[in-house]
């Protein structure tokens, strides 16, 4: 309980490093979500329309990948990005970009799989109407995504929550370097290891508040049930 009070004091005191860490967290997870959206939404849409064995296989692979453990993603990318790894020449390890890559890999299957479900769940009349009107590919994509927007927005929300709160990939790929790749989750783990539980708790509180606020904000704007 006293740790909790210390935590509040630390937040109110306006420690600039705390806000820097928060900004890095939001930047990394936000960028990862943006990339996952740009790639994942069209992918899910394409899979929803694809027919045949290959398409079914691809769909179940995408669904399965939503369960990828964060540490394994971190570890595999670590070996690839490490100086002696196949992508070592890119010099990405322990940078924000490496963390973004890792979190994009984690978010992409969620966005794609849930977009796929969102599109599949649309009433058949939506597809028939788009077809009979002879809508071009892009118009069709735009109107059908708009029909599934509630489910797609909640997919993006879920993906964001996953990457914003994950630790495994962030700590392995970012290395928790102060002022560089230190994010809320990696620094919480560090402060706990150091034994500074007030700081860990303060940062944890910020993490929870942001995660919940983003959720609540998006929810009231997009996902409210019609009254």
């Amino acid at each position, binding site marked *: 309980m006293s740790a909790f009070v210390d935590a509040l004091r630390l937040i109110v005191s306006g420690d600039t490093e705390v806000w820097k860490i928060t900004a890095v967290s939001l930047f990394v997870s936000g960028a990862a979500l943006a990339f996952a959206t740009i790639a994942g939404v069209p992918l899910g849409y394409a899979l929803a329309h694809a027919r045949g064995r290959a398409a079914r296989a691809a769909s179940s692979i995408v669904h399965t990948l939503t369960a990828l453990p964060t540490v394994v993603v971190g570890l595999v990318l670590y070996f690839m990005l490490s100086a002696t790894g196949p992508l070592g020449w890119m010099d990405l390890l322990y940078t924000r970009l490496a963390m973004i890559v890792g979190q994009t890999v984690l978010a992409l299957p969620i966005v794609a799989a849930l977009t796929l479900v969102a599109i599949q769940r649309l009433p058949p009349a939506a597809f028939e109407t788009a077809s009979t009107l002879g809508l071009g590919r892009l118009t069709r994509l735009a109107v059908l995504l708009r029909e599934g927007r509630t489910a797609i927005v909640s997919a993006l929300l879920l993906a964001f929550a996953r990457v914003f709160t994950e630790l495994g990939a962030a700590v392995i790929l970012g290395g928790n*370097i102060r002022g*560089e790749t230190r994010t809320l989750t990696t620094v919480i783990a560090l402060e706990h290891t150091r034994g500074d539980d007030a700081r860990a708790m303060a940062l944890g509180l910020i993490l929870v508040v942001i995660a919940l606020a983003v959720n609540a904000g998006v929810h009231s704007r997009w996902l409210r049930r019609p009254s």
Partner: protein
Amino acid sequence: MFALAAAVFGAACGPRPPRLRIATTTSVDSSGLLDTLVPGFEQEHGVNLQVLAVGSGQAFQLGRRGDVALLVTHEPAGERALISDGLVRYYRKFMFNRFVIAGPPEDPAAARGAASASEAMSRIARSGRLFVSRGDDSGTHARERQLWAMAGVSPQPAHLIETGQGMAPTLRVASQRVAYVLTDEATLARLADAVQLRVIYDNDPALLNTYAVMILTTAPARTSELADRFARWIAEGGGRQHIDAFRIGTRQVFFLWPAGLDAASPESTPAGVRAP
């Protein structure tokens, strides 16, 4: 929109002052010493110093893979292995402190009366009391295994708790389970109020904990010069003042490597030099 995103992204990931990436053990980081060393060096040299705080085992691995240019470690055997493999271009001992055997204040294993650290460890093992181990291939863990080997005995598996975590959580577990534990002085000093643990044994050269700085041959050429600067700064230059002035509360927990003492081999210890 896209251009804006690209601009923000570029600014956030883009060029900055020359970067030196080093790995150090968690004990150096947890003590807070780095919080004075890093800004000190960055200000004097205009370098972006990036520190990965990891266990010694992982630090050696990072060095072998060429992911960092420079290591600060406290595990002589592992350091020797790296030197033997021809991976070390520069090696200097630059500071030391002590490991201590800590345990419940009432010392149920009567380890305080032992004649040496290894005898204290053997008393703990034979007493059937719990011992908490880092179990993470850290320098502290390596020293712990070395002491068990010297004692010629080790605790029953049922009496050994491996945390696999850093020093602070390990001390908390030891306190919770009324167990003995090997720790560095600095972390114990910082957690003194939070744990029910006392120093049980500290007066033995076998408990000396020596820190070395190494530059690796695997270091990328462009960071090599920066690594040189940092190593010399910490071992011979301005870094020494920061180390000497560092306190936890009022307590000094790191001591400069004495001048004139062999600083170039991992096995060298400042035995006989009594910490104040």
